[in-house]
Protein backbone atom coordinates (compact mmCIF):
# COMPACT_ATOMS: atom_id res chain seq x y z
CA UNK A 1 0.00 0.00 0.00
CA UNK A 2 1.27 3.47 -0.83
CA UNK A 3 2.21 5.62 2.13
CA UNK A 4 -0.30 8.30 1.16
CA UNK A 5 -3.24 5.90 1.00
CA UNK A 6 -2.15 4.35 4.29
CA UNK A 7 -2.05 7.74 6.00
CA UNK A 8 -5.43 8.74 4.59
CA UNK A 9 -6.91 5.45 5.82
CA UNK A 10 -5.42 5.97 9.29
CA UNK A 11 -6.77 9.53 9.43
CA UNK A 12 -10.25 8.35 8.41
CA UNK A 13 -10.18 5.62 11.07
CA UNK A 14 -9.14 8.09 13.78
CA UNK A 15 -11.83 10.55 12.71
CA UNK A 16 -14.47 7.80 12.80
CA UNK A 17 -13.33 6.71 16.26
CA UNK A 18 -13.44 10.32 17.47
CA UNK A 19 -16.98 10.67 16.13
CA UNK A 20 -18.03 7.56 18.05
CA UNK A 21 -16.57 8.67 21.42
CA UNK A 22 -19.54 10.76 22.68
CA UNK A 23 -21.96 7.92 21.87
CA UNK A 24 -19.96 5.12 23.47
CA UNK A 25 -17.89 6.64 26.27
CA UNK A 26 -18.73 8.23 29.60
CA UNK A 27 -18.80 11.91 30.40
CA UNK A 28 -15.27 12.03 31.72
CA UNK A 29 -13.78 10.31 28.68
CA UNK A 30 -15.60 12.79 26.44
CA UNK A 31 -14.09 15.64 28.45
CA UNK A 32 -10.59 14.12 28.32
CA UNK A 33 -10.86 13.55 24.56
CA UNK A 34 -11.72 17.21 24.15
CA UNK A 35 -8.66 18.16 26.20
CA UNK A 36 -6.54 15.91 23.97
CA UNK A 37 -7.93 17.58 20.84
CA UNK A 38 -7.28 21.06 22.27
CA UNK A 39 -3.69 20.19 23.09
CA UNK A 40 -3.48 18.56 19.65
CA UNK A 41 -4.48 21.80 17.89
CA UNK A 42 -1.98 23.73 20.01
CA UNK A 43 0.86 21.28 19.39
CA UNK A 44 0.28 20.53 15.72
CA UNK A 45 0.44 24.27 14.99
CA UNK A 46 3.42 24.72 17.26
CA UNK A 47 5.29 21.94 15.51
CA UNK A 48 5.14 23.89 12.24
CA UNK A 49 7.49 26.25 14.03
CA UNK A 50 9.63 23.73 15.93
CA UNK A 51 9.68 20.60 13.78
CA UNK A 52 9.30 22.15 10.35
CA UNK A 53 11.23 25.43 10.68
CA UNK A 54 13.54 24.56 13.58
CA UNK A 55 12.58 27.46 15.85
CA UNK A 56 12.10 26.76 19.57
CA UNK A 57 9.61 29.13 21.19
CA UNK A 58 8.85 29.25 24.90
CA UNK A 59 6.19 31.90 24.57
CA UNK A 60 3.25 30.31 22.79
CA UNK A 61 1.19 30.25 25.98
CA UNK A 62 0.75 33.98 25.43
CA UNK A 63 -1.05 33.38 22.11
CA UNK A 64 -3.13 30.65 23.68
CA UNK A 65 -4.18 33.13 26.36
CA UNK A 66 -4.81 35.80 23.73
CA UNK A 67 -7.24 33.40 22.09
CA UNK A 68 -9.03 32.67 25.36
CA UNK A 69 -9.24 36.30 26.52
CA UNK A 70 -10.05 37.49 23.00
CA UNK A 71 -13.06 35.19 22.92
CA UNK A 72 -13.96 36.17 26.50
CA UNK A 73 -13.92 39.91 25.86
CA UNK A 74 -15.79 39.50 22.61
CA UNK A 75 -18.44 37.46 24.40
CA UNK A 76 -18.77 39.98 27.22
CA UNK A 77 -18.82 43.15 25.14
CA UNK A 78 -19.87 42.34 21.58
CA UNK A 79 -21.64 39.09 20.84
CA UNK A 80 -21.98 35.65 22.33
CA UNK A 81 -21.89 33.91 18.97
CA UNK A 82 -19.28 31.17 19.44
CA UNK A 83 -17.99 31.22 15.86
CA UNK A 84 -17.42 34.96 15.91
CA UNK A 85 -15.93 34.55 19.38
CA UNK A 86 -13.43 31.98 18.11
CA UNK A 87 -12.63 34.27 15.17
CA UNK A 88 -12.04 37.14 17.61
CA UNK A 89 -9.80 34.92 19.74
CA UNK A 90 -7.73 33.83 16.73
CA UNK A 91 -7.50 37.45 15.54
CA UNK A 92 -6.23 38.56 18.96
CA UNK A 93 -3.63 35.78 18.93
CA UNK A 94 -2.52 36.70 15.40
CA UNK A 95 -2.15 40.34 16.34
CA UNK A 96 -0.06 39.52 19.39
CA UNK A 97 2.00 37.02 17.38
CA UNK A 98 2.79 39.66 14.76
CA UNK A 99 4.07 42.00 17.48
CA UNK A 100 6.07 39.38 19.37
CA UNK A 101 7.26 37.68 16.20
CA UNK A 102 8.49 40.90 14.66
CA UNK A 103 10.80 41.34 17.65
CA UNK A 104 11.87 37.72 17.96
CA UNK A 105 12.52 36.42 14.43
CA UNK A 106 15.53 38.70 14.03
CA UNK A 107 17.32 36.23 16.26
CA UNK A 108 17.69 32.46 16.24
CA UNK A 109 18.37 29.54 18.54
CA UNK A 110 18.86 30.39 22.21
CA UNK A 111 18.28 34.12 21.71
CA UNK A 112 15.04 33.48 19.90
CA UNK A 113 13.91 31.05 22.62
CA UNK A 114 14.75 33.49 25.41
CA UNK A 115 13.08 36.43 23.68
CA UNK A 116 9.85 34.46 23.23
CA UNK A 117 10.09 33.43 26.88
CA UNK A 118 10.50 37.05 27.95
CA UNK A 119 7.54 38.19 25.81
CA UNK A 120 5.40 35.39 27.21
CA UNK A 121 6.27 36.38 30.77
CA UNK A 122 5.35 39.99 30.04
CA UNK A 123 1.97 38.95 28.70
CA UNK A 124 1.39 36.78 31.76
CA UNK A 125 2.21 39.59 34.13
CA UNK A 126 0.04 42.06 32.20
CA UNK A 127 -2.93 39.72 32.49
CA UNK A 128 -2.16 39.04 36.15
CA UNK A 129 -1.92 42.71 37.11
CA UNK A 130 -4.61 44.35 34.98
CA UNK A 131 -7.25 43.16 37.43
CA UNK A 132 -9.96 45.64 36.34
CA UNK A 133 -9.86 44.38 32.78
CA UNK A 134 -8.79 40.75 32.98
CA UNK A 135 -9.99 39.76 36.41
CA UNK A 136 -6.40 39.20 37.55
CA UNK A 137 -5.77 35.84 39.20
CA UNK A 138 -9.50 35.01 39.12
CA UNK A 139 -9.40 35.10 35.35
CA UNK A 140 -12.29 35.95 33.10
CA UNK A 141 -15.27 33.94 34.34
CA UNK A 142 -18.76 33.21 33.13
CA UNK A 143 -18.02 32.66 29.46
CA UNK A 144 -21.18 31.21 27.94
CA UNK A 145 -21.69 28.61 25.25
CA UNK A 146 -24.47 30.16 23.18
CA UNK A 147 -25.91 28.13 20.33
CA UNK A 148 -24.21 28.40 16.95
CA UNK A 149 -26.75 30.28 14.87
CA UNK A 150 -26.56 30.69 11.13
CA UNK A 151 -28.11 34.08 10.29
CA UNK A 152 -30.92 33.26 12.68
CA UNK A 153 -32.16 30.59 10.27
CA UNK A 154 -31.29 27.61 12.40
CA UNK A 155 -29.38 27.05 15.60
CA UNK A 156 -27.09 24.28 16.76
CA UNK A 157 -26.87 24.08 20.55
CA UNK A 158 -23.41 23.44 22.08
CA UNK A 159 -24.42 23.81 25.71
CA UNK A 160 -23.76 20.27 26.89
CA UNK A 161 -20.32 18.66 26.71
CA UNK A 162 -21.52 16.07 24.24
CA UNK A 163 -22.77 18.80 21.91
CA UNK A 164 -19.71 20.94 22.37
CA UNK A 165 -17.54 17.91 21.61
CA UNK A 166 -18.49 18.08 17.93
CA UNK A 167 -17.78 21.80 17.85
CA UNK A 168 -14.23 21.01 19.02
CA UNK A 169 -13.93 18.03 16.67
CA UNK A 170 -14.70 20.19 13.62
CA UNK A 171 -11.92 22.63 14.53
CA UNK A 172 -9.56 19.81 15.39
CA UNK A 173 -10.11 18.09 12.05
CA UNK A 174 -9.69 21.38 10.22
CA UNK A 175 -6.45 22.17 12.11
CA UNK A 176 -4.90 18.79 11.39
CA UNK A 177 -5.90 19.03 7.73
CA UNK A 178 -4.46 22.55 7.45
CA UNK A 179 -1.20 21.56 9.14
CA UNK A 180 -0.95 18.55 6.83
CA UNK A 181 -1.44 20.70 3.73
CA UNK A 182 1.08 23.26 4.92
CA UNK A 183 3.69 20.57 5.51
CA UNK A 184 3.21 19.22 1.97
CA UNK A 185 3.14 22.63 0.30
CA UNK A 186 5.85 24.70 -1.38
CA UNK A 187 5.70 26.98 1.68
CA UNK A 188 6.35 23.93 3.88
CA UNK A 189 9.40 22.99 1.81
CA UNK A 190 10.75 26.53 2.11
CA UNK A 191 10.34 26.24 5.90
CA UNK A 192 12.17 22.91 5.93
CA UNK A 193 14.95 24.56 3.92
CA UNK A 194 15.25 27.28 6.55
CA UNK A 195 15.49 24.61 9.25
CA UNK A 196 18.17 22.71 7.36
CA UNK A 197 20.27 25.68 6.30
CA UNK A 198 19.07 29.25 6.80
CA UNK A 199 22.04 30.87 5.08
CA UNK A 200 21.70 28.74 2.00
CA UNK A 201 17.97 29.52 1.93
CA UNK A 202 18.84 33.19 1.58
CA UNK A 203 21.15 32.31 -1.30
CA UNK A 204 18.26 30.36 -2.81
CA UNK A 205 16.34 33.64 -2.88
CA UNK A 206 14.14 32.96 0.16
CA UNK A 207 13.56 35.98 2.44
CA UNK A 208 14.21 33.94 5.57
CA UNK A 209 13.08 36.45 8.16
CA UNK A 210 9.71 36.99 6.52
CA UNK A 211 9.12 33.25 6.36
CA UNK A 212 10.02 32.87 10.01
CA UNK A 213 7.57 35.61 10.92
CA UNK A 214 4.87 34.02 8.76
CA UNK A 215 5.18 30.61 10.39
CA UNK A 216 5.44 32.19 13.83
CA UNK A 217 2.14 34.00 13.31
CA UNK A 218 0.61 30.88 11.80
CA UNK A 219 1.53 28.77 14.83
CA UNK A 220 0.25 31.61 17.03
CA UNK A 221 -3.10 31.37 15.24
CA UNK A 222 -3.33 27.65 16.04
CA UNK A 223 -2.51 28.44 19.67
CA UNK A 224 -5.19 31.13 19.72
CA UNK A 225 -7.76 28.74 18.25
CA UNK A 226 -6.93 26.17 20.90
CA UNK A 227 -7.11 28.80 23.67
CA UNK A 228 -10.46 30.18 22.55
CA UNK A 229 -11.91 26.65 22.46
CA UNK A 230 -10.62 25.99 25.98
CA UNK A 231 -12.29 29.20 27.18
CA UNK A 232 -15.58 27.86 25.83
CA UNK A 233 -14.97 24.41 27.31
CA UNK A 234 -14.05 25.64 30.82
CA UNK A 235 -16.25 28.78 30.73
CA UNK A 236 -13.28 30.89 31.76
CA UNK A 237 -9.92 32.33 30.70
CA UNK A 238 -7.09 32.08 33.22
CA UNK A 239 -3.79 33.96 33.44
CA UNK A 240 -1.90 30.69 33.76
CA UNK A 241 -2.73 29.94 30.14
CA UNK A 242 0.01 32.50 29.35
CA UNK A 243 2.45 31.12 31.91
CA UNK A 244 5.71 29.74 30.63
CA UNK A 245 4.97 26.33 32.13
CA UNK A 246 2.02 26.18 29.76
CA UNK A 247 4.21 27.39 26.89
CA UNK A 248 6.41 24.36 27.56
CA UNK A 249 3.54 21.93 26.99
CA UNK A 250 3.62 21.89 23.16
CA UNK A 251 7.42 21.57 23.32
CA UNK A 252 7.25 18.53 25.58
CA UNK A 253 4.38 17.01 23.64
CA UNK A 254 6.17 17.43 20.30
CA UNK A 255 9.35 15.87 21.70
CA UNK A 256 7.39 13.02 23.22
CA UNK A 257 5.51 12.20 20.02
CA UNK A 258 8.25 13.08 17.53
CA UNK A 259 9.09 16.32 15.76
CA UNK A 260 9.37 15.06 12.24
CA UNK A 261 5.82 13.89 11.54
CA UNK A 262 2.37 15.42 11.58
CA UNK A 263 1.08 12.71 13.90
CA UNK A 264 3.92 13.10 16.41
CA UNK A 265 2.55 16.04 18.42
CA UNK A 266 -0.98 14.56 18.26
CA UNK A 267 0.13 11.23 19.69
CA UNK A 268 2.33 13.05 22.19
CA UNK A 269 -0.64 15.18 23.26
CA UNK A 270 -2.83 12.13 23.79
CA UNK A 271 -0.15 10.42 25.87
CA UNK A 272 0.45 13.62 27.85
CA UNK A 273 -3.20 14.13 28.81
CA UNK A 274 -3.83 10.44 29.52
CA UNK A 275 -0.69 10.10 31.63
CA UNK A 276 -1.50 13.22 33.62
CA UNK A 277 -4.89 11.74 34.49
CA UNK A 278 -3.55 8.33 35.41
CA UNK A 279 -0.53 9.47 37.40
CA UNK A 280 -2.49 12.17 39.21
CA UNK A 281 -4.69 9.48 40.74
CA UNK A 282 -1.74 8.09 42.61
CA UNK A 283 0.39 11.10 43.35
CA UNK A 284 0.34 14.88 43.31
CA UNK A 285 3.76 14.95 41.71
CA UNK A 286 2.72 13.83 38.30
CA UNK A 287 5.51 15.86 36.70
CA UNK A 288 7.98 13.43 38.28
CA UNK A 289 6.45 10.51 36.43
CA UNK A 290 6.19 12.46 33.20
CA UNK A 291 9.78 13.66 33.59
CA UNK A 292 11.00 10.08 33.75
CA UNK A 293 9.09 9.13 30.59
CA UNK A 294 10.44 12.17 28.76
CA UNK A 295 13.96 11.34 29.93
CA UNK A 296 13.72 7.83 28.48
CA UNK A 297 12.30 9.12 25.19
CA UNK A 298 14.94 11.79 24.70
CA UNK A 299 17.88 9.62 25.72
CA UNK A 300 16.79 6.40 24.03
CA UNK A 301 14.25 7.21 21.34
CA UNK A 302 15.26 10.48 19.76
CA UNK A 303 12.55 10.36 17.11
CA UNK A 304 9.82 10.27 19.76
CA UNK A 305 7.01 7.72 19.80
CA UNK A 306 6.10 8.16 16.12
CA UNK A 307 9.71 8.21 14.95
CA UNK A 308 10.44 4.96 16.78
CA UNK A 309 7.29 3.29 15.53
CA UNK A 310 7.90 4.21 11.91
CA UNK A 311 11.50 3.00 12.17
CA UNK A 312 10.23 -0.34 13.52
CA UNK A 313 7.65 -0.48 10.76
CA UNK A 314 10.28 0.16 8.09
CA UNK A 315 12.45 -2.57 9.55
CA UNK A 316 9.57 -5.05 9.60
CA UNK A 317 8.60 -4.38 5.99
CA UNK A 318 12.12 -4.02 4.64
CA UNK A 319 12.73 -6.43 1.78
CA UNK A 320 15.25 -9.22 2.28
CA UNK A 321 15.84 -9.46 5.99
CA UNK A 322 12.13 -9.33 6.89
Amino acid sequence: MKAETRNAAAAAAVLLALCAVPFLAGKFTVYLTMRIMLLGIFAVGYNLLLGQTGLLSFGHGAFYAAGAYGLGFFGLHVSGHPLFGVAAGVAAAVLLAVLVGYLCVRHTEIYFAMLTLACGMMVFSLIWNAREITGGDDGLIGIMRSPVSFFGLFKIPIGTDRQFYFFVLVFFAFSVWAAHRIRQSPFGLALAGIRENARRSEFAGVPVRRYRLAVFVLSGAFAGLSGSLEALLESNARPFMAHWTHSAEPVLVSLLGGLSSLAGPLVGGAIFVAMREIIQRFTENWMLGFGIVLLVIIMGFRGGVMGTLSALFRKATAPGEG
Partner: protein
Amino acid sequence: MGAPLLTTEKLSNHFGMVCTARDLDLRFERGVLTSIIGPNGAGKSTLINLLTGHLPVQAGKILFQGREITRLPIHRRVRMGICRSFQVVNVFPELTVAQNVMIPVLARTGRSWRPIRSLSRETAVMRETEAFLEKVALLTERDTPATALSHGDLRLLEVGVALAAAPTLLFLDEPTAGMNPVERVRLLENIRELAREGRTTFVVVEHDMDVVFSLSERIIVLHRGEVLCDGTPEAVRADAKVREVYLGDDVSDLFRYREEE
Protein backbone atom coordinates in the same frame (compact mmCIF):
# COMPACT_ATOMS: atom_id res chain seq x y z
CA MET B 1 30.22 44.31 -25.05
CA GLY B 2 27.69 46.88 -23.84
CA ALA B 3 27.25 47.94 -20.22
CA PRO B 4 29.14 45.89 -17.64
CA LEU B 5 27.19 43.34 -15.64
CA LEU B 6 28.73 44.27 -12.32
CA THR B 7 31.13 46.98 -11.25
CA THR B 8 32.73 47.86 -7.93
CA GLU B 9 33.96 51.27 -6.87
CA LYS B 10 36.68 51.50 -4.24
CA LEU B 11 35.41 48.38 -2.52
CA SER B 12 37.29 47.83 0.75
CA ASN B 13 37.23 45.43 3.68
CA HIS B 14 39.40 44.98 6.75
CA PHE B 15 39.47 42.29 9.41
CA GLY B 16 41.18 44.20 12.21
CA MET B 17 44.56 45.18 10.80
CA VAL B 18 44.38 42.72 7.95
CA CYS B 19 43.28 44.23 4.68
CA THR B 20 41.36 41.76 2.50
CA ALA B 21 40.06 44.25 -0.07
CA ARG B 22 41.70 47.59 -0.82
CA ASP B 23 39.94 50.09 -3.12
CA LEU B 24 38.92 47.45 -5.63
CA ASP B 25 37.60 48.84 -8.92
CA LEU B 26 36.44 45.84 -10.89
CA ARG B 27 34.23 45.30 -13.92
CA PHE B 28 32.62 42.03 -14.87
CA GLU B 29 31.35 41.86 -18.44
CA ARG B 30 28.48 39.69 -19.56
CA GLY B 31 29.54 36.36 -20.99
CA VAL B 32 33.23 36.50 -20.03
CA LEU B 33 34.19 33.44 -18.03
CA THR B 34 36.46 34.88 -15.37
CA SER B 35 38.69 33.23 -12.77
CA ILE B 36 39.93 34.82 -9.58
CA ILE B 37 43.22 33.44 -8.28
CA GLY B 38 45.80 34.39 -5.72
CA PRO B 39 47.70 32.95 -2.77
CA ASN B 40 45.88 32.06 0.47
CA GLY B 41 44.62 35.18 2.21
CA ALA B 42 44.64 37.21 -0.99
CA GLY B 43 41.00 38.14 -0.50
CA LYS B 44 39.33 35.88 -3.06
CA SER B 45 36.63 34.59 -0.76
CA THR B 46 36.19 38.00 0.82
CA LEU B 47 35.52 39.49 -2.60
CA ILE B 48 32.80 36.93 -3.32
CA ASN B 49 31.34 37.41 0.14
CA LEU B 50 31.15 41.16 -0.37
CA LEU B 51 29.64 40.95 -3.84
CA THR B 52 26.96 38.42 -2.86
CA GLY B 53 26.01 40.06 0.44
CA HIS B 54 27.50 37.46 2.75
CA LEU B 55 29.69 40.17 4.32
CA PRO B 56 28.54 43.76 4.91
CA VAL B 57 30.44 46.29 2.80
CA GLN B 58 32.63 48.56 4.93
CA ALA B 59 33.52 51.04 2.23
CA GLY B 60 32.89 51.44 -1.48
CA LYS B 61 30.04 50.66 -3.82
CA ILE B 62 28.71 47.73 -5.83
CA LEU B 63 26.59 48.25 -8.94
CA PHE B 64 24.75 45.44 -10.68
CA GLN B 65 23.42 46.21 -14.16
CA GLY B 66 23.65 49.88 -13.30
CA ARG B 67 21.74 49.63 -10.00
CA GLU B 68 23.42 50.05 -6.66
CA ILE B 69 23.21 46.89 -4.55
CA THR B 70 25.83 47.73 -1.90
CA ARG B 71 23.46 47.29 1.05
CA LEU B 72 20.84 44.93 -0.36
CA PRO B 73 20.13 41.76 1.63
CA ILE B 74 21.24 38.45 0.15
CA HIS B 75 17.85 37.23 -1.05
CA ARG B 76 17.21 40.48 -2.95
CA ARG B 77 20.52 40.13 -4.79
CA VAL B 78 19.64 36.54 -5.63
CA ARG B 79 16.31 37.67 -7.07
CA MET B 80 18.15 40.26 -9.15
CA GLY B 81 20.39 37.55 -10.54
CA ILE B 82 23.52 37.21 -8.41
CA CYS B 83 24.15 33.84 -6.85
CA ARG B 84 27.03 31.75 -5.57
CA SER B 85 28.13 28.28 -4.60
CA PHE B 86 30.22 27.53 -1.55
CA GLN B 87 33.72 26.21 -1.07
CA VAL B 88 32.58 23.92 1.74
CA VAL B 89 29.45 22.04 0.71
CA ASN B 90 26.50 24.00 2.04
CA VAL B 91 23.24 22.34 0.98
CA PHE B 92 20.06 21.24 2.77
CA PRO B 93 21.30 17.99 4.34
CA GLU B 94 18.10 16.20 5.35
CA LEU B 95 16.22 17.06 2.15
CA THR B 96 16.32 15.00 -1.02
CA VAL B 97 18.38 16.04 -4.03
CA ALA B 98 15.24 17.14 -5.86
CA GLN B 99 13.98 19.15 -2.90
CA ASN B 100 17.35 20.87 -2.61
CA VAL B 101 17.09 22.13 -6.17
CA MET B 102 13.38 22.83 -5.88
CA ILE B 103 13.75 25.47 -3.17
CA PRO B 104 15.51 28.04 -5.37
CA VAL B 105 13.17 27.22 -8.27
CA LEU B 106 10.13 27.85 -6.06
CA ALA B 107 11.57 31.03 -4.60
CA ARG B 108 12.44 32.43 -8.02
CA THR B 109 9.03 31.74 -9.49
CA GLY B 110 7.27 33.22 -6.44
CA ARG B 111 5.60 29.92 -5.62
CA SER B 112 7.22 29.31 -2.25
CA TRP B 113 4.52 31.30 -0.44
CA ARG B 114 1.79 28.86 -1.41
CA PRO B 115 0.74 27.23 1.86
CA ILE B 116 -2.11 24.88 0.89
CA ARG B 117 -1.46 23.62 -2.64
CA SER B 118 0.34 20.29 -2.68
CA LEU B 119 3.93 20.34 -3.87
CA SER B 120 3.30 17.28 -6.03
CA ARG B 121 0.90 19.35 -8.15
CA GLU B 122 3.54 21.93 -9.04
CA THR B 123 4.34 20.14 -12.26
CA ALA B 124 6.07 23.10 -13.90
CA VAL B 125 8.43 23.34 -10.92
CA MET B 126 9.04 19.59 -11.05
CA ARG B 127 9.93 19.76 -14.73
CA GLU B 128 12.29 22.68 -14.22
CA THR B 129 13.89 20.95 -11.24
CA GLU B 130 14.50 17.85 -13.32
CA ALA B 131 16.07 19.93 -16.06
CA PHE B 132 18.57 21.36 -13.56
CA LEU B 133 19.28 17.90 -12.13
CA GLU B 134 19.96 16.73 -15.65
CA LYS B 135 22.47 19.55 -16.15
CA VAL B 136 24.49 18.47 -13.13
CA ALA B 137 23.98 14.76 -13.86
CA LEU B 138 22.08 14.01 -10.66
CA LEU B 139 18.71 13.00 -12.11
CA THR B 140 19.17 9.39 -11.04
CA GLU B 141 19.74 10.49 -7.44
CA ARG B 142 16.66 12.71 -7.29
CA ASP B 143 15.08 11.00 -4.26
CA THR B 144 18.31 10.43 -2.33
CA PRO B 145 18.74 12.55 0.80
CA ALA B 146 21.69 14.93 0.41
CA THR B 147 23.45 13.37 3.41
CA ALA B 148 23.66 10.04 1.59
CA LEU B 149 25.51 11.44 -1.46
CA SER B 150 29.18 10.89 -2.21
CA HIS B 151 31.48 13.89 -1.90
CA GLY B 152 31.66 14.41 -5.64
CA ASP B 153 27.89 14.27 -6.03
CA LEU B 154 27.50 16.73 -3.15
CA ARG B 155 29.75 19.17 -5.00
CA LEU B 156 27.58 18.75 -8.08
CA LEU B 157 24.49 19.37 -5.98
CA GLU B 158 26.14 22.45 -4.51
CA VAL B 159 26.51 23.85 -8.02
CA GLY B 160 23.04 22.62 -8.97
CA VAL B 161 21.37 24.55 -6.14
CA ALA B 162 23.20 27.69 -7.22
CA LEU B 163 22.25 27.17 -10.88
CA ALA B 164 18.60 26.61 -10.00
CA ALA B 165 18.36 30.23 -8.87
CA ALA B 166 18.90 30.96 -12.61
CA PRO B 167 21.47 33.67 -11.92
CA THR B 168 22.74 36.14 -14.48
CA LEU B 169 26.05 36.19 -12.63
CA LEU B 170 27.20 33.12 -10.75
CA PHE B 171 30.22 32.94 -8.45
CA LEU B 172 31.63 29.46 -7.93
CA ASP B 173 33.93 29.21 -4.92
CA GLU B 174 36.34 26.34 -5.63
CA PRO B 175 33.71 24.18 -7.32
CA THR B 176 36.05 21.23 -7.84
CA ALA B 177 37.67 21.13 -4.38
CA GLY B 178 38.15 17.56 -3.21
CA MET B 179 36.82 16.02 -6.41
CA ASN B 180 38.47 13.12 -8.16
CA PRO B 181 39.81 13.81 -11.69
CA VAL B 182 36.87 12.17 -13.47
CA GLU B 183 34.30 14.18 -11.55
CA ARG B 184 36.36 17.30 -12.01
CA VAL B 185 36.45 16.97 -15.79
CA ARG B 186 32.72 16.28 -15.84
CA LEU B 187 31.90 19.36 -13.79
CA LEU B 188 34.20 21.60 -15.84
CA GLU B 189 32.59 20.36 -19.04
CA ASN B 190 29.23 21.30 -17.53
CA ILE B 191 30.39 24.78 -16.60
CA ARG B 192 31.87 25.35 -20.03
CA GLU B 193 28.68 24.24 -21.70
CA LEU B 194 26.47 26.37 -19.47
CA ALA B 195 28.72 29.36 -20.08
CA ARG B 196 28.34 28.80 -23.81
CA GLU B 197 24.55 28.80 -23.46
CA GLY B 198 25.03 32.41 -22.42
CA ARG B 199 22.29 32.82 -19.82
CA THR B 200 24.75 32.82 -16.95
CA THR B 201 28.10 34.53 -16.61
CA PHE B 202 30.49 32.53 -14.47
CA VAL B 203 33.16 33.84 -12.10
CA VAL B 204 35.22 31.04 -10.61
CA VAL B 205 37.62 31.01 -7.68
CA GLU B 206 40.04 28.15 -8.17
CA HIS B 207 43.30 26.82 -6.80
CA ASP B 208 43.87 24.33 -9.55
CA MET B 209 45.81 26.18 -12.23
CA ASP B 210 45.14 23.57 -14.91
CA VAL B 211 41.48 24.31 -14.39
CA VAL B 212 41.99 28.05 -14.37
CA PHE B 213 44.00 28.27 -17.55
CA SER B 214 41.91 25.81 -19.52
CA LEU B 215 38.60 27.36 -18.51
CA SER B 216 39.00 31.12 -18.31
CA GLU B 217 38.81 33.91 -20.80
CA ARG B 218 39.97 36.37 -18.18
CA ILE B 219 41.99 35.95 -14.99
CA ILE B 220 42.14 38.32 -12.03
CA VAL B 221 45.10 37.80 -9.72
CA LEU B 222 44.54 39.10 -6.20
CA HIS B 223 47.27 39.69 -3.66
CA ARG B 224 46.71 41.15 -0.19
CA GLY B 225 43.38 42.62 -1.15
CA GLU B 226 44.63 44.29 -4.33
CA VAL B 227 44.48 43.44 -8.00
CA LEU B 228 47.95 42.34 -9.00
CA CYS B 229 47.13 41.50 -12.57
CA ASP B 230 44.01 41.35 -14.67
CA GLY B 231 43.84 40.04 -18.22
CA THR B 232 43.78 37.09 -20.57
CA PRO B 233 45.41 33.83 -19.45
CA GLU B 234 48.37 34.54 -21.75
CA ALA B 235 48.88 38.01 -20.28
CA VAL B 236 48.74 36.67 -16.74
CA ARG B 237 51.13 33.84 -17.53
CA ALA B 238 53.60 36.37 -18.89
CA ASP B 239 53.23 38.90 -16.07
CA ALA B 240 56.40 39.49 -14.03
CA LYS B 241 54.61 40.58 -10.85
CA VAL B 242 52.57 37.39 -10.79
CA ARG B 243 55.75 35.35 -11.03
CA GLU B 244 57.23 37.34 -8.19
CA VAL B 245 54.26 36.77 -5.87
CA TYR B 246 54.44 33.08 -6.57
CA LEU B 247 58.01 33.13 -5.17
CA GLY B 248 59.65 33.79 -8.49
CA ASP B 249 59.29 30.17 -9.48
CA ASP B 250 58.52 29.05 -12.93
CA VAL B 251 54.84 29.86 -13.23
CA SER B 252 53.69 26.70 -14.89
CA ASP B 253 55.52 24.70 -12.24
CA LEU B 254 54.14 26.60 -9.34
CA PHE B 255 50.68 26.68 -10.73
CA ARG B 256 50.64 22.92 -10.45
CA TYR B 257 50.28 23.19 -6.67
CA ARG B 258 46.98 22.06 -5.31
CA GLU B 259 45.12 23.06 -2.24
CA GLU B 260 45.48 20.42 0.45
CA GLU B 261 42.17 19.77 2.19
